């Protein structure tokens, strides 16, 4: 297997679904709020 094939195969293995990205983004936001980076989110 060539290097290109290996890199493409490993990149597709690590490709995350939209669902997973949304969960990760929400967790990150929750952690930032927990850490006090964002103290108040107005509505």
């Amino acid at each position: 297997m060539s290097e290109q094939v290996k890199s493409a195969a490993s990149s597709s293995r690590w490709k995350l679904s939209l669902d997973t990205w949304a969960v990760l983004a929400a967790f990150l936001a929750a952690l930032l709020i927990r850490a006090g980076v964002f103290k108040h989110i107005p509505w």
Partner: protein
Amino acid sequence: MADAVSVPQVHPVQPMLRFVRVIPGVLLLAAIGYAGKLLEQNVGAYAKAHHWTFPNIEYVLWAIVLGLAISNTVGVPELFRAGVATYEFWLKAGIVLLGSRFLLGDILKLGGVSLVLVAIEITGAIVFMTFLGRVFRLKPKLTSLLAVGSAVCGVSAIIATKGAIEADDEDSSFSIAAILALGALALFTFPLIGHFLHLSDRAYGLWAGLAVDNTAEATAAGALYSDAAAKLAVLVKSTRNAMIGFVVLAYAIYWAGKGQAQAVGNKAAFLWQKFPKFVLGFLVISVLATYHFFSKDQVGALANLSRWAFLLTFAGVGLRTNFKEMRKQGLRPFAVGAIGEVAIAVFTLGLVVGAERLFGF
């Protein structure tokens, strides 16, 4: 190097380009959503100042109507389309963050009731839609797609099933168009029916979560009624979404048995692949909130962030609904979908009213 030819080249700049491409559309979603919020605040105040009788129209409806107006008049320019398509991302992130407003005990209590109702709804919807598909002589795979779309969770379920049963692109376009058109109608009819029947927030939220097909529309239909109804609609809809893998797997096995789809190898991997991960994210945040990982103010901040995410989603719901495009897909699948959806709505309304009397929630 023949084996490298068929593999697409990976360009390091691609993710950055993809990110830049979505910016205009995301800004459009934010502008429409924020305009909806301003309209809610100002139209009501203006009407009150001039002693007009004007119903209080929520930002949810303003955002959807503004999006619909743009989509069905000038259309969404190409520049914005990639960003508008991110509305699903905001929806799912919003649902995960909404988990902070649920205590685990509530989820277990309501989740238990809703799980039973969801199981009845899914079974009833699949049986009825399959019957209707046969009566209207739709293609069997088109019938399967419509049944899954109306029983489980709209567009995502149709796309997942399409791949698993190897249905035609045309069949999935028909089904998606029918489910989206009916979802748009539900947005306007469900709150009216709920108010007409004086449904409680809980009963209405359960009903919207059970009967409205797409997650975005179910969330919006709940939010158009009340905040409490929206919370419950999201919980019930997420329970329905969690069933997607099982239903798609059953259809995949059925069609593979007929020799018209590939056999499913590892069933556990198949279920995990189809399982909506945002449901797990929602549960994790809910567990953290239950065990006081977040302070009261932080829970408030998370809930507000979830509302902002939903604001972008509601703008996206309006923007991606184009009635002209839907009309092009033909009437028969739409008729089957419409008859099925009305029957499911009546059936689930009966279920919810019965459950409310039985369990007194």
